[in-house]
């Protein structure tokens, strides 16, 4: 069984600052990792994914994430945040090769900017 942990329930920074949202997972086999964003009152929107290859993956709107097998992590980063980035961010995992593409989500990190 795979599990996902997002240690920060809430992150707040100034516009233009950089940000890192943390995600750690637990699973013994091959795993597919992704990040989704949810703006208030909307469904989830896919940001980026990783399965193999270059551990740094680029997503939409300047987001990137880095996979670390040794740390069991897949942290999301952005160099300079904008007001429109305010949302809840979910890290998700899926166990590869099980025949099911179901996603297991973390509890989410609410990201907001200091006015």
């Amino acid at each position, binding site marked *: 069984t795979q599990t996902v942990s997002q240690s920060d329930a809430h992150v707040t920074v100034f516009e233009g600052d950089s940000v890192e949202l943390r995600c750690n997972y637990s699973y013994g086999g091959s795993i597919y990792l992704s990040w*989704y964003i949810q703006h208030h009152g909307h469904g989830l929107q*896919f940001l980026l*994914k990783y399965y193999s290859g270059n551990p740094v993956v680029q997503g939409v709107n300047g987001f990137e994430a880095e996979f670390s097998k040794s740390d069991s992590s897949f942290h999301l980063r952005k160099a300079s945040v904008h007001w429109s980035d305010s949302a809840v961010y979910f890290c998700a995992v*899926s166990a590869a090769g099980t*025949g*099911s593409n179901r*996603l297991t*989500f973390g509890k*989410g990190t609410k990201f907001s900017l200091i006015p």
Partner: protein
Amino acid sequence: NAGVIQTPRHKVTGKGQEATLWCEPISGHSAVFWYRQTIVQGLEFLTYFRNQAPIDDSGMPKERFSAQMPNQSHSTLKIQSTQPQDSAVYLCASSLDTYEQYFGPGTRLTVL
């Protein structure tokens, strides 16, 4: 491309009534997923269809919940005898049967 369509967006039922939620996946997508979102439990997987066939329903409550996909253009989630603890946002997602899923706006179910 209209994206995943879910109807209704909001539904209020009385305790013990039935609720049927509808999902229209993105045209051409072969997989449909249902998730439930609450403040306390977060996002929970319910069930998953591939080419209209049920593949994984391990997240479905054993009683009162059922899901169907009678054709490639829609799926339904039915909750019989709704209870207050069923109150949640029910999210439908579709995909080309990959891990990249496209979510609808959700149906907010409130059971009084």
